[in-house]
Every structure is written in C-alpha cells, then in structure tokens.
C-alpha cells in the first residue's frame, strides 16, 4: 500500500494532536496538576506573522526526526507558556509563576533553561511514543535543541526557515491548573515531508506482508485461479479497496473456486460445502468445517463515533489496515462504515494526480461526518446463525460484511465474506477446533 505526501501530512497532523494530548496526560500524572490542550485549525504561517502573536520572548524546542519524517520540526511556547510550564517543573510558588508571566525578563527565562530542557525531553518522549505506536515508518524523535529568546529575528537559524517562508503551523492553546491559557504551536517546515515522501512512492505497509505473488500457491489452486471469479461473488458488490486489502487471501479464494465448480448453482454449492467436510487440495483431507457466526467472526474491531469525520476514519483505517469500522459509543453499534464507503464520500480531486484541480470544497469532503455515510443496521447476524444462512444473506443483500449482534442488540463482532473463505480453507484457525 502506498501513501501520498498529502496523506502523510494529514496523518502527521492527526498524530501531533494526539501526541500533544498525551504530553498533557504525562505531565498531569507526573506533577499532579491538570493540563489540557486545544488545537485550532492547521494553517500556513511565516515567522514574520508569528512574531506578532508570539512576540519577542518565546521558547522553541527543536525535534530531530528520522524515518518517514526526515528533518527538524519545532514546538514553540509563548512567554506565558514558557514561565508557567517551567515554573511547574521546577516547583516555583504560584505567585512567582504569575509574576513571571507578567513581568518575566529574558534573563529570568534563561535561568529556567534546564527546566525547558526537561520539558522538551518529556515532550519529545510523548511524541515519539505516539508516533512509534501509530506510524509504521516512523524512525525516532530526538530533542535537538532549546532556544529561549526572540526566535523570529533570525528565524533561519532558530527554526530553519526564512522569515517570509511558509510552513505548516498547528496553533494550540494549553491550560495548566488554574493559570490562564497560553499559546503554543507546532512548526512543520515543508522540507520535513519532502525528502522521503514523494507522491505515491512511500510504503507504510508492515514489512512482513509480502506481495501475494511471493506466496507459494498450490498447483490445483493456481490452475483454477484463471477461472472468472465473478461467478462466486458478484463483482459489483466487491469494493476495490476491500479486494486490495484482502490480497493475501486470494489463494484461499482460488482454492474455494476449485472446490465449487462454477456450473453448480451457488446456494447448492454453499450447502454442500458448509454441511460437509472439506476435501482440500494438497492432501490434508476431511477437515470439519465451522458452523456458525460465532466460530468465524472477528471480535477485534475498531470503533469510531458517528460524529467523527471521514478524515479521522480514514486515518484510523490506515493505521489498523482494517476494512471496516464500527460506528457507535460504549459498545452500542449504530452502524458500520467500510473503506469503500469512505472512498465514495471523498472527492476524487483529493487524489495526488488531480492535485492541480483541487478546490477547498474538495477538502471539505474529508470533514463529512460518518453518520451521513455509514450503513445503518439493516442486515445483521446472530452469534448462532448457521454459516449457510449467513452466506445466503450476503448474496441476497449484496453485502460482504455482517455485524453479529444478539436479540438484545449486544454486539459480538463482524463476519466478512473473507472470514468465511478463510475459515473454510483454514479450519485449524477457527475457534471451534
């Protein structure tokens, strides 16, 4: 799977928000004081413009990134933030912190340099953790410096960009305890994304997932794979993206074709397969087959809120490499959204090849709320529903995924066509054995 430069930027921005929240939680736990942060909309800024907002006294923590992000980015705190955060770290009395926020000089700020170093260390630790957990190609973040003073006067030296050069900026407001909110922001120079993130050339796929052609395919299956697959599942109901994400399972699909001659009617074939033992190619014959939804369903699923945006859902899906997201709260399922639902919702002009024609309205499609595009719970399966009924239902309603819920509406998992194929072909992996 490849990811474009735009997607990397979007992913980084998403993770930056999460990392800032994690930093607040970390400091809260360490110093026993409440911290909160609120991010505003990402924008393009220049050092000249920021100098008006952040004035002449600020602290800049520089972070050297390696991996998919290659270069240095910066986190800047205004004067109020500088004295509050450092004051908390060195345990200054409350009144001293308040006085410094109002009248603190650059000399007083420099006296707190060690505290900023520690704040930066903790900040980078939180960020590194979040990126390591959520971005496959992330290398490492290391704090590369702390600057106290006027970062805008010689911005090329302090933040690595000329005073009139655009950079991505995520403005945020942070609150610590009962102190008034202060400003901080994240500066991402454009060069950070340029070195490795050429459009459509960066792979975020885990290394262990080898291309399908590298997997040995049993001879019988390889021959049958040439038969048209559309006879088994109507092509129109198979979202391209889902097929792509299930590529490693093609072998399974091919073997299924071998076991079910196309000339036979589909329900009859299914009846035969599900109600009998499998006679698989390769010699491992007569394996009992799974019988009901509970035996083959996926229970490890991801949840999103119906108020989440398409962009948030795409990010989550990308991170997990999952084809479906459950929509709901507190385990109560309201709907389900697939990758093809999301792809259908966003403008085609967001694709890198159409970047030239991209308009603000196209970006707005990323903000569509999931509640407007999700599939409501019309077709479901019970945990005890026999496999043959599930397959028939999938054919009848042209759906490849059914949520498994009981009569009280309690959610158990989901079952996809590919789960069924896999369990038919690999019964050893099924929970019933």
């Amino acid at each position: 799977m490849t990811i474009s430069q735009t997607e990397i930027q979007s992913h980084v921005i998403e993770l930056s928000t999460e990392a800032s929240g994690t930093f607040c939680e970390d400091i809260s736990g360490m110093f026993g004081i409440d911290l909160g942060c609120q991010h505003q909309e990402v924008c393009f800024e220049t050092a000249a413009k920021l100098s008006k907002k952040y004035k002449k006294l600020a602290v800049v923590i520089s972070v050297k990134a390696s991996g998919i992000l290659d270069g240095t980015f910066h986190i800047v705190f205004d004067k109020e933030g500088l004295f509050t955060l450092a004051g908390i770290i060195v345990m200054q009395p409350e009144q001293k912190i308040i006085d410094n926020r109002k009248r603190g000089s650059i000399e007083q700020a420099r006296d707190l340099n060690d505290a900023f170093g520690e704040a930066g260390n903790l900040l980078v630790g939180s960020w590194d953790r979040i990126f390591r957990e959520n971005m496959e190609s992330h290398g490492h973040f290391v704090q590369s410096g702390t600057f106290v003073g006027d970062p805008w006067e010689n911005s090329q030296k302090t933040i690595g960009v000329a005073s009139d050069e655009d950079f991505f900026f995520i403005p945020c407001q942070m609150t610590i305890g009962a102190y008034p909110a202060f400003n901080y922001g994240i500066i991402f120079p454009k060069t950070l994304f340029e070195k490795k993130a050429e459009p459509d050339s960066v792979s975020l796929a885990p290394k262990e997932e080898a291309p399908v052609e590298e997997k040995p395919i049993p001879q019988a299956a390889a021959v049958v794979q040439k038969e048209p697959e559309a006879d088994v599942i109507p092509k129109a109901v198979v979202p391209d993206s889902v097929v792509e994400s299930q590529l490693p399972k093609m072998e399974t699909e091919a073997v299924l074709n071998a076991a079910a001659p196309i000339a036979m009617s589909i329900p009859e074939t299914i009846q035969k397969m599900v109600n009998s033992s499998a006679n698989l190619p390769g010699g491992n014959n007569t394996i009992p087959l799974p019988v009901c939804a509970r035996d083959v369903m996926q229970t490890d699923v991801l949840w999103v809120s119906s108020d989440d945006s398409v962009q948030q859902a795409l990010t989550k899906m990308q991170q997990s490499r999952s084809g479906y997201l459950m929509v709901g709260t507190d385990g109560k399922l309201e709907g389900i959204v697939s990758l093809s639902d999301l792809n259908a919702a966003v403008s085609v002009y967001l694709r890198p090849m159409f970047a030239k024609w991209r308009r603000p309205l196209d970006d707005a499609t990323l903000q569509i709320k999931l509640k407007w595009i999700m599939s409501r719970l019309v077709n479901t399966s019970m945990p005890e529903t026999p496999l043959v009924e599930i397959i028939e239902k999938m054919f009848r309603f042209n759906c490849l995924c059914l949520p498994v819920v009981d009569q009280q509406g309690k959610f158990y998992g989901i079952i996809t066509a590919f789960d069924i194929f896999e369990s038919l072909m690999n019964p050893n992996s099924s929970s019933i054995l």
Partner: protein
Amino acid sequence: MGKSLMIVDDSATMRKIIMRTVRMSGLEFDRTEEAGNGVEALEKLKGGVVDIILCDINMPEMCGTDLVKRVRQIPDCNGTKIIMVSTESSQELIDSVIADGANGFICKPFTPEKFQEKLSPFMN
C-alpha cells in the same frame, strides 16, 4: 536499618523531580545522594555504597549503561539495585541494560505509583 538512595542524572531539575516523586510515593530513605554523571556517581560510591541507584541513561562523561557495567564490577556493590530512568523506552534498550546488570527500568514520564511499584520490592 534504613535504606539509601542515589539519583544519577545530569539535569539538576530532573534530580529534584525524581526526589520529589520518590517522596510522594511514600518510600522512605535514611540517606540520599545525587550525582551528575557516572564518574561522579562512582566517586560517591567509594565513600559508601547505596542500596538503590536511580540512573539516567544519556549523560555526559559516563552514561548510565557504562555506569551499570562499572558498578557491577565493584564487589561492595553486589547488593546495590540499579533502576534506569529514561524517556527512551525501546525494548532493545531495556533488554540491553538489564543484560548489563540493571535491576529495572522506569520510563519517563513517571508517577509516584510507578516508583512505588518498581522500588518497593527492594525495600525489605
């Protein structure tokens, strides 16, 4: 008999934070020492061994991993427990310092509860 503790970190602020957090965890030490790097720590150990060392990894002059190896060569420090404290938390690093002779690892950011959990087994 009360226990003794040494905090080794090149940042005076961080030593102060660790000391405060240890106190908040409810653990009590009769004697506490501080050192700014591995060399300083070894000098202080010559004056008297300690029961527990809380040690940063990245420090000038002598880093935490080198300090662990050196302390393990001092016969008097056989009973000294060394807990590393660092923002770097990769499994490779943890495995490596444990293999070198460290007794535990605390990732920054830490909480009083974390110190309680990691240090209390060595308090009796």
